[in-house]
């Protein structure tokens, strides 16, 4: 019964930590906009969310034998990192496209806040249900 109450909250929690992972990734790209040879990266968000919520098996490393080091569970971006393709060629082989990164950053920030609001309204609904008023 209780996990039916908190299932949505769990889902949004995973989404929130994935959003913060992506925010960090884009911040790294923006920070390295002038680094020669840096290759911009981004993550496949829907894929990562499916894996984090258990809808799909992880494409990352799996511990199959007792001696293996277990990979960290939960919402992680590493397995889904992909390389961005440069929109314009650059002499120093840097593939950061500042316009794209800024747009992604703003987009991700808005979606992060949206997830926060989902969580907040979820909590409010739950508290209302508990109070019964």
């Amino acid at each position, binding site marked *: 019964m209780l996990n039916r109450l908190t299932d949505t909250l769990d889902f949004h929690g995973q989404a*929130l*930590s994935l959003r*913060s*992972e992506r*925010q*960090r*990734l884009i*911040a*790294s790209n*923006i*920070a*390295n*906009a*002038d*680094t*020669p*040879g*840096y290759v911009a*990266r981004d*993550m496949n968000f829907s894929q990562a969310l499916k894996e984090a919520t258990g809808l799909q098996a992880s494409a990352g490393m799996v511990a199959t034998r007792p001696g293996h080091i277990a990979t960290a569970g939960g919402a992680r*971006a*590493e397995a889904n*990192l992909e390389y961005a393709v440069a929109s314009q060629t650059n002499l120093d082989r840097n593939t950061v496209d*500042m316009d794209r990164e*800024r747009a992604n*950053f*703003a987009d991700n*920030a808005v979606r*992060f*806040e949206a997830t*926060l609001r989902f*969580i*907040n309204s979820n*909590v*409010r609904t739950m508290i209302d249900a508990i109070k019964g008023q």
Partner: protein
Amino acid sequence: MSLFQVFNVTGSAISAQSQRLNVVASNLANADTVAGPDGAAYKARQVTFQAELMGQMGDAASTGVKVSTITEDQTPGRRVHDPNHPSADADGYVTYSNVNPVEEMVNMISASRSYQNNIEVMNTAKSLLLKTIQMGQG
């Protein structure tokens, strides 16, 4: 919470960009320096950036910046014929530094834009974190 890593990443970028700005400032300040008696004038300097992994266990998702080297431009300085100049050599030539002011101005604008970008990233991360702190209250 991986959002906290954003501060480390952009912080490293800001300090790298400010070092670049510093080098530009010293280049511009020495744009008209003449060679001393040893004949060696000021040489323009350039910073080189390098990506640096910052997360735990070399997590590729947070990559900061560091200044790896500062190189001196080895092109010969500008030579001007001015026999009356106190620093003129035996042939009457004065050697100035090899700083190109136009190049330095472009470098300065680029550095200050990147600096602003990183500050904005930091501000956004801060406001997101502040909203996360208030989660479940409103």
